[in-house]
């Protein structure tokens, strides 16, 4: 009905959009949002391959469950770090937080 390559093309487009966001966003929260787009694109890839190449096995879907969990954990820790940075430097723009180079 819908061939595998169309799912993969959707995943590739979403990945590139997330990549563009990671490169250009100045705000740290914006970078995290674009990272979420990339992770979702990868998850679509996993599930599409699981359905077309190994329809009897659950490995793709279970891997996506773990990917969602790890993405959640990393986003939580990233946001905690952003809140701590904001408390100290009063800014979250990543090109203004350059105290490591004196």
């Amino acid at each position, binding site marked *: 009905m819908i061939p595998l390559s169309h799912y993969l*093309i959707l995943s590739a487009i979403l990945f590139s959009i997330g990549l563009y966001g990671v490169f250009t966003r100045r705000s740290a929260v914006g970078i995290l949002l674009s990272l979420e787009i990339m992770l979702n694109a990868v998850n679509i890839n996993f599930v599409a391959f699981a359905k077309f190449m190994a329809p009897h096995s659950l490995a793709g879907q279970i891997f996506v469950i773990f990917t969602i969990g790890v993405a959640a954990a990393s986003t939580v820790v990233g*946001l905690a770090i952003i809140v701590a940075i904001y408390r100290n430097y009063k800014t979250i723009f990543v090109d203004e937080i350059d105290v490591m180079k004196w």
Partner: protein
Amino acid sequence: MWSNFLSASIFYLIALVSIIFALLSVTLKNMFHSALALIVMLLGVAAVYIYLDAEFLALVQVLIYVGAIMTLVIFAIMLTAEIYNKNIKRHNQQKLVSLVIASSMAGFLIFVLSRFKAQDGISFFEPLTLAMIGKELLTKYVLPFELISVILLAALVGSAAISKPR
């Protein structure tokens, strides 16, 4: 025949909506609007999961990604971002180069993937139910299952410790 055509066209519509809202999410100047556009994109991805016969994953996606992660992101936006000032630049000076890089990568991947021929997705012979997922999580994949609990505990404790006011 008509239902096949209808469901295929709805898939392309949902895919287009996901792509449009992902583009909005990376380009909007208001951080809050960007988070809301990401929520729509995540719902579109959940619909794609249903097309791929992964209904439990669609549920998990909506509950965890939209319900928990995006709520947390909106909290962080409200706590940190200065979203009302219209004069602040939201994108740094690497816009043109990264547009070239991202679009060339997308073009190359689309060119390669459109020649990828696989057999049509056979709908499974017996449905992969939630009971089977649960059983496999606890027998075959029990080590990642326990490890993800440890990871989530570490993230919980760590984030609470990092963002504690001194």
